[in-house]
């Protein structure tokens, strides 16, 4: 039975395919269209999933959409009834889109699938937005039963949900409703600090350790009325997102001492402190919600999804200080993951198929469920373009060669096997470097990623040696948890930190400076042999050469661009940045040997700001 899950028309559209209960393929549309956060119907992703699953033209048994459009529309109409004429600016933008597209989603889905050459799907279902998130969290998890927590900006009405998953069912028990939204509160601060909503939230999280929670009490006193059970109301006097074009209004500006930061301008202490303050408040809300969820469900394990679940700092705090023994967080926690949740919910929840969980293995297959390219395909691509390469057939020699390059302080692009699903690059579409280097963070940020240098890189560490370096006793294969570097690897600097954040970030404060944040935290990926043998082999080889089982792992893209999908994308990114080497499967490419890049400009010249 082939069940296709689709998320689309808001942001991060994606498709996922579940075949007889197995998640066989999933991909985000942005990877194919090269438009970051592409929200259009994911026709490329659907085509990929159906092709990867070998689905015949009349073999789509069901399509499950991750949202209830009419319920969302009713919320939109009520919102305009709340704001009256103040909402006209967004009203005239939103309504044409709804009348042209979003009210006709069943027909659009059918049409797009037919345009791909497939027959009409057997059935079409609609899950609630937070049900999809909840399903993506629990039904993909290794747990037989667990509490479920989902939180994001807003679905139809819900902004956060508490539920319970048992066996093959997901039951949402309680919801927090719009406009009281933790996701929107966080996005309001993202906007106010000069970053883009829906994509800049992780930057705000990265900025938090530099600041002090000076505004925590103002947020709790003025902006939200937080209850002991984690529910809260937002004081809408300070926000403009109901009917305006911005997230916050002049009262918000007044409360925090001035207008929002202009994007790309210098960061001031205010932004650092705001980032820290909202991070502290977010963690507090998440913790309270978790306590309430534990009481409500009586479960000892929890599954998380929704955009807020991408806040790995809060996740780490929840794991340390929360009521649950174990956490499993959907790696594609944002809206893209809704496609996975919808497809899994179709198989289990709607069709009632039995589910078994062993408590260890999830169904995400390391998230390596995106498009993959065989060595033959890669070689054909390289040959057809005349790009020089070295083929290394022997697996050990291949891994050692790459490790040697990293040890020589080279920046290496990794393009291995199937692409990851979700926002994290986990070794198959990654750029790696030497985590021991004092200059590597700055080098990779400015010469490869073309982004603000305050953001730390994530470490990829061999799973079996993670506890030697980090205060963590569970695996974090999806880079969804933050853990502190162990004391033994820290180097303590002076009590005062530099005025300029760039100097501060470049301070060497551990023997792994490139991945150590100013508070010694790191967003870690534990790499195990089972899920990614090639990536594990590379880090093992690096460990053998240097005695360090940790490398920098950052996504294979530049700022404002989606992660690369095809060898062509990878080669283009490789040539347009100052990356030194590129690994395409078993083929190694040296920048010095490549012909001059004449196809288009350097990426730094036409950078799309994110």
């Amino acid at each position, binding site marked *: 039975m082939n069940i296709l899950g689709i998320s689309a028309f808001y942001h991060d559209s994606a498709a996922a395919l579940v075949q007889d209960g197995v998640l066989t393929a999933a991909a985000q549309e942005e990877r194919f269209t090269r438009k970051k956060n592409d929200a259009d119907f994911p026709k490329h992703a659907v085509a990929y999933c159906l092709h990867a699953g070998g689905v015949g033209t009349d073999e789509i048994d069901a399509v499950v959409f991750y949202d209830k459009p009419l319920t969302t529309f009713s919320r939109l109409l009520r919102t305009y009834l709340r704001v009256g004429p103040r909402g006209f600016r967004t009203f*005239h933008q939103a309504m044409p889109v709804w009348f042209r597209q979003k009210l006709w989603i069943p027909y659009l889905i059918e049409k797009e699938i037919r345009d791909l050459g497939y027959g009409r799907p057997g059935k079409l279902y609609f899950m609630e937005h937070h049900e999809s998130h909840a399903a993506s969290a629990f039904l993909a998890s290794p747990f037989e039963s667990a509490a479920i927590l989902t939180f994001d900006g807003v679905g139809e009405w819900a902004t956060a949900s508490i539920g319970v998953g048992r066996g093959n069912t997901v039951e949402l028990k309680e919801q927090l*409703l719009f406009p009281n939204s933790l996701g929107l509160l966080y996005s309001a601060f993202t906007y106010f600090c000069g970053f883009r909503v829906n994509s800049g939230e992780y930057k705000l999280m990265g900025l938090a350790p530099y600041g002090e929670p000076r505004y925590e009490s103002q947020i709790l006193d003025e902006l939200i009325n937080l209850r002991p059970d984690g529910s809260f109301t937002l004081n809408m006097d300070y926000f403009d997102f109901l009917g305006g074009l911005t997230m916050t209004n002049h009262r918000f500006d007044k409360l925090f001492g001035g207008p929002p930061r202009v994007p790309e301008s210098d960061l001031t202490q205010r932004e650092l402190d705001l980032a820290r303050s909202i991070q502290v408040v977010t963690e507090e809300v998440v913790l309270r919600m978790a306590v309430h969820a534990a009481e409500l469900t009586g479960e000892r394990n929890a599954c998380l999804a929704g955009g807020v679940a991408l806040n790995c700092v809060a996740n780490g705090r929840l794991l340390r200080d929360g009521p649950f023994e174990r956490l499993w967080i959907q790696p594609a926690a944002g809206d893209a993951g809704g496609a996975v949740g919808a497809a899994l919910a179709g198989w289990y929840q709607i069709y009632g198929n039995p589910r078994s969980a062993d408590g260890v293995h999830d169904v995400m297959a390391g998230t390596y469920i995106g498009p993959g390219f065989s060595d033959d395909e890669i070689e054909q691509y390289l040959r057809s373009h005349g790009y020089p390469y070295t083929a290394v057939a022997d697996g050990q020699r291949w891994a050692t060669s790459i490790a040697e390059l990293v040890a020589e302080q080279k920046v290496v692009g990794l393009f291995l096997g199937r692409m990851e699903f979700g926002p994290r690059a986990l070794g198959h579409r990654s750029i790696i470097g030497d985590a021991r280097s004092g200059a590597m963070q700055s080098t990779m940020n400015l010469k490869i990623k073309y982004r603000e240098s305050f953001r730390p890189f994530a470490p990829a560490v061999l799973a079996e040696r993670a506890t030697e370096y980090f205060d963590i006793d569970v695996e974090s294969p999806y880079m969804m948890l933050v853990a502190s570097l162990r004391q033994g690897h820290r180097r303590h600097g002076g009590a005062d930190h530099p005025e300029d954040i760039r100097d501060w970030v470049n301070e060497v404060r551990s023997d792994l400076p490139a991945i150590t944040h100013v508070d010694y935290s790191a967003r870690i990926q534990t790499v195990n042999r089972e899920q990614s043998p090639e990536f594990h082999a590379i880090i093992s080889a690096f460990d053998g050469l240097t005695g360090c089982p940790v490398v920098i792992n950052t996504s294979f893209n530049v700022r404002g661009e989606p992660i690369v999908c095809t060898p062509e994308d990878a080669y283009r990114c490789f040539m347009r940045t100052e990356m030194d080497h590129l690994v395409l499967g078993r083929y190694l490419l040296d920048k010095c040997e490549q012909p001059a890049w004449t196809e288009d400009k350097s990426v730094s010249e036409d950078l799309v700001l994110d």
Partner: protein
Amino acid sequence: MRQILFGVVVFVVLWLLGRHTAAIVIVLVAGSVAAVCALSVRAARGMDRVIAWVTSTVGRGLSYLLLGLVELLVFTPVAAVLWLVRRDPLALGSSPNDPSLWRPHFADGRTPLYGRQFTYEIPRRVVGHRSTLGRVAFVVGTVVLLLLADLGVGSAIHALKSSNPESPKALTSYYSGVAAAPKAPWWPSVLLESFQQAYVAQFEPLRGFDFPRNLSGPYLNVTDGVRRSYEPPASGTGKPVEVLFLGGSTTQGAFQRDDYTIPSDVARLATGDDIPIHVVNRGQYGYAIWQEVELLEELLTSGYRPDVVVFYDGVNDLSIQTTEGTTTIPSHLKAQEYAQAIAQYLHPGSTQPLANRIYDAYRNRSAIAMGVSDVSSLVSSHPPASSKKLTPLQGNTQSPDQSIPTAITRANDAVSIYLRAVQLIQELAAGYNFQVRAFWQPFLYSKKPVAAEKNIEGFEGESPPAWFAMAAQARKDLRPPVIDLSDALNGVKAPVMIDYEHTNELGSLAVAKAMYGSLKPVLTAVADKSQP
């Protein structure tokens, strides 16, 4: 393909709105552009870009406008009411003061509906057990809503189509498809003045109806019931011949300036022949011969003594038969309307049932009725019947019986009534010592057909075949001393008919010339007699 479809839609909409010329121009332009695009790919691309730009700009503008209206007329008032009653549409039953803001996912045991685009609905069994009364209320409510929607759309279309019929722009636009409409700057004003006069008919007990006795405008002036006419320059050749003109709107000079009506033209022609003349134009909109006889009696009995009285009739006498019902006794064009009003006053409730009146009121504004009317008129190649609302002078609805035999009977009856009036007039002339000439007027259905005038056939909802038959039969029935001027317009090559009864100034001059041929000996004789 989409562009062609768009062109067809625009054409149909314009055609239904009565903008026939614009519709044809659109088709011609679109056809030319399509031909050019078919011959040149570059031109086609350029045209695509232009069309895309225009449509997107127009679309954006319309989007702003329509959504602005919805926001202003729907959301803003409701939002204001909700604000006044302190009800938050986003609260969904919760209060900010609740100790917890968590809400149950499915209240009241509702279950998820995976097959639907909404979260939950009222359970089906409740719908299934709707009471009979509930079903009736549902059906009635639905019908009322549909009727209201029909009325709303119809009213909007009506407003679009007619806007203000008294505005010169609307009138000019309405008559833009009439070939005889003068292309002169004074035309809109003359149209407006003609219509304004027509709309103010008042009940008059003896003659049926009357019009204001004084009107003044740039081109149409009436003083004490007399339309201003051409005044010959003063001469010392003797007392001018006093000529009284009686007739309907064609005599009065609808759609013509004061100095270019039939009486003015006759006066000018007589002056050219050195015949001293003073014309008195007492033509009245809608008058038939018996009303004129009554008016003449009033004038004579009040001491007025004309030398010559000219009667110019025909169309209204025939029209009475088609709008007021076939009759062998004198009547007038508002006889039924006034009879109903009087009957209703004298015997309330005995006239047209309320239901009929409601139905009539509804039908006048129903979009569906308009559509049916427009489509049927398209099929029958006649203008929509609703267009008669703009014609000022015949007014009432034509009888549904438009068969040829009935038309012939009507012509016989009309001429019979007419001739009896002429006989009486002759006796009056003998008694009061004046000369009289009775002319039978030419009109669209009695004159030689002209291609450019074809499109005004049926302009006021009349049946052209019936009217052609009526006109022909009437001519056969006429007897001396009536002078038949039915051929008076045949010598004019240019189109002269504004509608089926009225002419432009060129037409009135042709009629005046024909009339003058018969009048000249009389005028000369009277003038000679009055020479000192």
